[in-house]
């Protein structure tokens, strides 16, 4: 070319910023029930379209429709609703506790409850999640005691993590919940490795990796996909696309790829996209992917389309970078509200019962909080000991740490 055009840099920008009116009418959301359900042993190249659509079960009237519907019993759906309500109530209390100065930090998962709560119900005991900080729903759904979660938030004398970790960075091997790291993405290849170990040992357990939309940009995300692809690891690789990574919209991490799910294609990994605010849809897709892993058919990549309705954390104020009304305008609605309407439509629930359930859940969370606070909060009452700082650095404490512990007066 004799006269090449002048190059220019593309920097993606979100459609809406503070001061503009969010309008998602142009976003293509497939009608519930319209996306096909392939057999679990489908070859990845046969289902490439599923990475560009959105699997949905609950329609606008709250009916469960299509090939992904009907996976859950009435009781399981009612229990799912209550679990999500519990997570939301827990978040509200812990957010308030942080504001009251009882701890340093908190992160809510408002609007994303269906994803972790439904996914956990599709796992078997012995399976392992490698979560991020926004999957408290996995722990709650697995029956981990709220009091223990709160003791971690308060870093108090009963904190299972001995006051060491930032609030929300839980860990529970017994509940299939790998220790959370503050460093984004590191858990993703670890999930694949855990799954590979199960295969190496000829066991039946599978792993689930979790990552946010923004964090898929990390190299560790791609490391995980290549290992999962090469060794056909029994792992479900979950991407929670809640549209935001602190102030950065999902387009910065997604770049030129149509969707996050489509990232799996280059690795030959079957990739699905699902409505993350649709409890039955999340459960059905989770079950499909988990069955694939369990039958030694290899990894699945699942993108959950959702919206981070609250601030990133207690240190964040989203009004500085996105319109306040964006959350309301988001077209996939609220997961609790949607499941509630579905259950009312099936005569399995009512407004009165819902009000009662709100009160019950609230009472349960408040009782747990009272107990947890009797073991101390970050700044008052019994505390995690300074002595504990030196423990578990190594299995056996080396001499230099013994000396330092003594010097520190513990």
């Amino acid at each position, binding site marked *: 070319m004799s006269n090449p055009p002048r190059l*220019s*840099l593309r*920097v993606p*920008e979100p459609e809406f*910023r503070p001061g503009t009116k969010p309008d998602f009418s142009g976003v293509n959301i497939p009608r519930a029930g319209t996306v096909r359900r392939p057999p679990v042993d489908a070859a990845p190249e046969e289902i490439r379209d599923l990475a560009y659509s959105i699997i949905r079960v609950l329609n606008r009237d709250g009916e469960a429709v299509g090939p992904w519907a009907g996976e859950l019993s009435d009781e399981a759906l009612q229990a799912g609703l209550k679990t999500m309500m519990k997570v939301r109530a827990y978040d509200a209390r812990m957010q308030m506790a942080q504001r009251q100065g009882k701890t*340093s*930090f908190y992160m809510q998962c408002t609007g994303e409850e269906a994803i972790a709560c439904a996914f956990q119900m599709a796992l078997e005991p012995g399976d392992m999640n490698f979560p991020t900080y926004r999957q408290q729903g996995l722990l709650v759904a697995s029956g981990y005691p709220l009091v223990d979660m709160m003791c971690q938030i308060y*870093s*108090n004398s009963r*904190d299972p993590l001995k*006051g*060491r*970790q*930032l*609030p929300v*960075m839980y860990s529970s091997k017994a509940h299939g919940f790998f220790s959370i*790291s*503050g*460093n*984004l*993405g590191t858990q993703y290849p670890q999930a694949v490795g855990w799954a590979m170990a199960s295969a190496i040992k000829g066991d039946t357990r599978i792993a689930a990796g979790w990552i946010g939309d*923004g*964090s898929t*940009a*990390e*190299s*560790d995300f791609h490391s995980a996909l290549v290992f999962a692809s090469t060794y056909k690891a029994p792992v479900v690789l979950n991407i929670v696309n809640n549209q935001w*990574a*602190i*102030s*950065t919209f999902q387009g*910065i*991490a997604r*770049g030129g790829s149509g969707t996050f799910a489509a990232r799996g294609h280059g690795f030959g990994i079957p990739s699905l996209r699902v409505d993350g605010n649709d409890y039955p849809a999340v459960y059905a897709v989770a079950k499909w992917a988990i069955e694939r892993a369990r039958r030694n058919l290899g990894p699945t990549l699942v993108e959950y389309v959702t919206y981070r309705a609250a601030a990133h954390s207690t*240190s*964040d104020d989203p009004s*500085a*970078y996105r319109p306040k009304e964006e959350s309301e305008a988001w077209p996939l609605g609220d997961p609790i509200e949607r499941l509630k309407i579905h259950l009312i439509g099936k005569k399995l629930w009512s407004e009165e019962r819902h009000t009662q359930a709100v009160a019950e859940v609230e009472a349960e969370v408040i009782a747990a909080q009272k107990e947890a606070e009797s073991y101390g909060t*970050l700044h008052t009452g019994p*505390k*995690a*000991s*300074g002595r*504990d*700082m*030196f423990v578990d*650095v190594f299995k056996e404490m080396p001499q*230099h*740490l013994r000396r*330092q*512990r003594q010097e*520190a007066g*513990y």
Partner: protein
Amino acid sequence: MPTMTMIEAIRDAHDVMMARDDNVVVFGEDVGYFGGVFRCTRGLQQKYGRNRCFDAPINESGIVGAAIGMAAYGLRPCVEIQFADYMYPAYDQLVSEAARLRHRSANDFAAPITVRMPTGGGIFGAQTHSQSPEALFTHVSGLKTVVPSNPYDAKGLLIAAIETDDPVIFLEPKRLYNGPFDGHHERPVVPWSKHPLSEVPEGYYSLPLGVASVRRPGTALTVLAYGTMVYVAEAAAAETGIDAEIIDLRTLLPLDVDTIVASVEKTRRCVIVHEATRTSGFGAELSATVQELCFYHLEAPIVRVTGWDTPYPHAQEWAYFPGPQRLGEAFRRVMEA
């Protein structure tokens, strides 16, 4: 003269350099529209456009690697790593690439990049928002490492860093962003506006890398400090009544050996303080340097006061943080020796 917080001074340094030199580009996680989680790049995108200040994908290796490529082209990237604790994915690009590019290409290519990152604790950030990894940089030949302790220095040193033709790691003690902090966490925060070093000249000025500053002249002992520990040392001197000479190193590499030696030869005693873990910390390098150059002047063993060799804890933050009491005890020990 206007007073500034450390955040405002850092923002101002970017602004001055972006206005002076079209080749200065600024990027990192959340630094564009929002202006960074600590707001150190606030308004720069609005002023200079998305071509010069933009959000990066969450990939620290990519951020530093891309900065190296841009620098090789002729730009002067100044990038932000959101917390020093998140620089590890970028470590290969820093150690194997930025640090050695000039040497391995026989001066054919170079990487004049500035990599800023908030460091240190004191904000209940626990193990992934509190680290002080300076020794991981000073140990690498080819990287310069700077740690400012006040707004005036921060602006002048950041401007110098951006103008430096070699890679510079610019460590910002986050506990100092909004005010000097002497370790007395139980007392209210003192704003920068009450401190003389918050007076920051408008426009361009630079402070040379590799020059320390004597923050408190004294005769009894020398304290080698940087970042937050400068204020902890001031508090320890005030509380013990020991006439300490406090040296704010400001740049760890290149190190201002002359200022250190002159002071230790005068006081004959030396205490070294840093927040990072002790073993193989930068204090070990300082201690070895003082021993090598001042041995015949020393009247007491050199003492190090540091963070413990454990991950930075959450609840036990103040048991970990080397505060004025621990430092004061070290002063007494050195005086009694």
